[in-house]
């Protein structure tokens, strides 16, 4: 299988050029929230390995809240960010990026500090990378090609099943399976469908993954005595923060909420980006890095096939520290409306939200880190909206197909490529069509 990689290139925007950058980005859309695939700057659909991509201006919309922690409110840069998820390595994609979208990228990055016309684009991008502290992939190794082929497979089989449902319902399971398999073989032979066999998993990735699998528990083991010593100090500090942290009670900016709603829900899948400042303090920052490190480990080795704990509607998600850890970008692609997404999170993985977000300025008060926090539902939703960025341009290579759909499609393919073991399993498989 070909594992996915994420990329994120960020460069500070020259303040005088901010408006013109916004106008340029806006010109890439055909309507609010809907990208123009024929735009002259970035030929999104030319990239065969690009699952999702976003171009956005990242700024802390709630910078004023920093004042409650005596942090400076001015002088923080806004970033222009190009980010996305691809199959294979980022380096290979970067080359393709420069080759296909060089001029467009130059015109975009010309609005940024540190970019000069004479610069070599690939090197500039490489040096502008910001790595994620934690990255979640819904299905590690499921390539865009695989998703497209399996969706086409599902549609073809589903159409056939609908047309012949009366006779198919009467067939014994073995015969039913055989006739669907027969249909697949015919369609493949006729060139209507393709099921490309997965590529061999790159050895370097397997080695890196295996080392990471061992490394984290190893480090935990080695550091265990230190961690145990720090634990009571941390817990005391935690309770002190939870009791004494100044509260930030933002009113909802209805204009901002309206702007966000205008670009949302044009498809069944939405993108989501929030950016904010973190509360100051060495212990806080270190504990945040620690928890994100564990989250990344869990996403890589436990939650890598179909769900992030109980939430199965996220395609990709990442936590990216900016400015040396002073500020954090959280970004995800999820199915359904924001309301359903946030509710799901509060109810299903509230503890996870609290652990990874409670260090953000403005996050509702937690109780022993895991409790309360996002369960102050209305405050939580308001804070999220307050920090949410109206992403200027976003691209979905496969619109109209949710994460659950992609999972179902893979199950359909799997059930065809190897015959299910008994009649009951064939019936379960047939119900997927």
């Amino acid at each position, binding site marked *: 299988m070909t594992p996915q990689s994420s990329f994120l290139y960020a460069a500070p925007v020259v303040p005088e050029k901010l408006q013109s950058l916004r106008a340029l980005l806006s010109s890439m859309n055909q309507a609010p929230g809907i990208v123009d695939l024929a735009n002259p700057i970035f030929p999104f659909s030319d990239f065969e390995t690009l699952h999702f991509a976003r171009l956005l201006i990242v700024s802390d919309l709630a910078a004023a809240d920093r004042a409650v922690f005596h942090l400076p409110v001015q002088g923080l840069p806004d970033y222009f960010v190009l980010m996305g998820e691809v199959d294979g390595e980022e380096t290979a994609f970067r080359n393709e990026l420069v080759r296909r979208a060089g001029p467009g990228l130059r015109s975009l990055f010309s609005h940024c500090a540190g970019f000069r016309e004479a610069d070599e684009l690939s090197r500039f991008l490489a040096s502008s990378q910001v790595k994620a502290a934690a990255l979640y992939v819904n299905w590690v190794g499921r390539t865009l090609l695989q998703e497209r082929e399996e969706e086409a497979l599902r549609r073809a089989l589903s159409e056939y099943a609908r047309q012949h449902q009366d006779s198919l319902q009467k067939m014994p399971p073995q015969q039913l399976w055989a006739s669907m398999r027969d249909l697949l073989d015919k369609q493949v032979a006729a060139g209507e469908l393709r099921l490309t066999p997965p590529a061999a998993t790159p050895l370097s990735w397997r080695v890196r993954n295996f080392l990471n699998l061992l490394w984290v528990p190893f480090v935990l083991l080695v550091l265990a005595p230190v961690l145990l010593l720090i634990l009571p100090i941390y817990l005391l500090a935690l309770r002190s923060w939870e009791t004494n942290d100044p509260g930030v009670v933002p009113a909802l900016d209805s204009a901002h909420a309206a702007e966000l709603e205008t670009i949302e829900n044009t498809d069944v899948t939405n993108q989501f980006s929030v950016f904010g400042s973190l509360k100051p303090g060495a212990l806080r920052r270190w504990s945040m890095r620690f928890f994100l490190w564990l989250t990344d480990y869990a996403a890589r080795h436990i939650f890598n096939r179909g769900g992030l704990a109980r939430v*199965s509607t996220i395609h990709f998600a990442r936590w990216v520290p900016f400015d040396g850890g002073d500020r954090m970008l959280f970004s995800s692609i999820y199915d359904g409306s924001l309301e359903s997404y946030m509710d799901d999170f509060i109810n299903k993985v509230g503890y996870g939200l609290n652990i990874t977000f409670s260090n953000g300025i403005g996050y509702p008060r937690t109780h022993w880190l895991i409790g309360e926090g996002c369960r102050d539902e209305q405050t939580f939703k308001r804070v999220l909206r307050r920090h949410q960025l109206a992403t200027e341009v976003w691209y979905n290579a496969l619109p109209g197909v949710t994460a659950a759909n992609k999972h*179902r499609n893979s199950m359909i393919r799997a059930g065809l490529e190897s015959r299910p073991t008994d009649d009951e399993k064939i019936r379960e498989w047939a119900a997927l069509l």
Partner: protein
Amino acid sequence: MTTHEVDFREVQGILRFGYGRLTEAVFLLLNIRDINAARQWLATAPISNAVACETAPLTALQVAFTAQGLLRLGISKEMWSGFSIEFRMGMSAEPGRSRILGDVDANAPQQWTWGGPGREPHMMILLYAQPGKLNEWIKTTQEEQWENAFEVLSSLSTSDMEGKEPFGFADGLSQPTLDWESAKRPSTTETEYSNVCCLGEFVLGYPNEYGRYTDRPIVKEDSPSSSLLPPALDATGMRDFGKNGSYLVVRTLEQDVAGFWRFAQKSVGIDSNARDTLASAMVGRTRDGMPLAGMRPEPIPGVEAASAPQNQFTFDEDLKGTRCPFGAHIRRANPRNADLPTPPAHGFEKALQYVGLGKRTLQSDAKASVRFHRILRRGREYGTPISVEGAINNKEDGSSRGLHFMCLVANISRQFEFLQGAWMMSSKFDAMTDESDPLLGNRQPVSGAVTDRFSQPQDSGVCHCTTGLPRFITVKGGGYFFLPSLSAIRYLASLKVAEI
């Protein structure tokens, strides 16, 4: 806790009663002509409260306001910001909202007969009466300043279809039971479905299922007329304008009864039993109200013994959807689940469930927990009823019929809009694809894919799929209203013209 005792004299009646015996009803959509005259009318109007009487009342009057109406009456900026953002924006003003609600194409607000963008009424007056008494009641409520105060934009009449909705199905059978005594203390994770809902899910000023107070307008103690309002229980020094009030969502849904039954008949051939079976599968109940999922022996909290045959069921015994299809109307409207995935597990398996590991199917955890998304329905049908045979045989007169859908919720976005957007209109509900609600769906393609299918899982494996469902329901009007407590109405009546 005595702080949560409800003073029923404060609550408008429809939060507690459906007024089922008051079978005549009309809903008037008004603009306020003269603010002072309107205030005078509000001060003396005989608005019905929720106090239970020995005998059913002969008449009832309820009053609700849109955001525009409240602004017209002169509420302060402080109070304005306490209303939810979706209420302030209204149901029809934003394309983003219309997308979520499915109000696109033929349902688009530009084509509504009431409530469209720029045409939201200020107020809605709800008049109920026992048979034969409505006209007199209308006259009674319209003495005293009425002509000066209001202009009637639209008059939504209703008909008594004797407990059935226009397609011919028994309706209004399933309602949440409001916890008026505030006895329920929901834990962070509820493992069993219950029909009892925290009072704060429907009535503002009381704790909701999150144990918190939903945002509502509160005003400072020293502001004018604030002494008319009760204290805010979650904010010291503030008075609670929203307490004992609620949000009222109204949508006029025109139903193509002939189209529905003709399609059902055409889909199955000539057999009328098969036609009724398909129609019941789309609804999730038989025409006389029996749930396809079948009753369960264990009682459900909040479901009375008398309504057990219709409501004492969950879908735990129908995990494959072969009895009641996953996409059936009542299964979308209320999946009757709890906070954990289905099927329920025990011991170590259950611990795994909490973190999303262990045995799962596509549908195990695909729906949110319904206790955060209940609505209290109070709709009324309109138009002349038509029988199934009459509809199929084209014996109709071209008149329209349908439902003035109405529901009461404390949080429009989390309850009504979520239900409508994520469950009803979503063609991806419950890990499915290509189908939205068979009754309400607008059949608009999504990203190039159809949404006009309806699938019925079969024991043999292959689903029975009906395709090409036409649109059966067209939205003709709608609005978000605020249903204030009686004290809050007295407060509005006493407002001087406020500085905005």
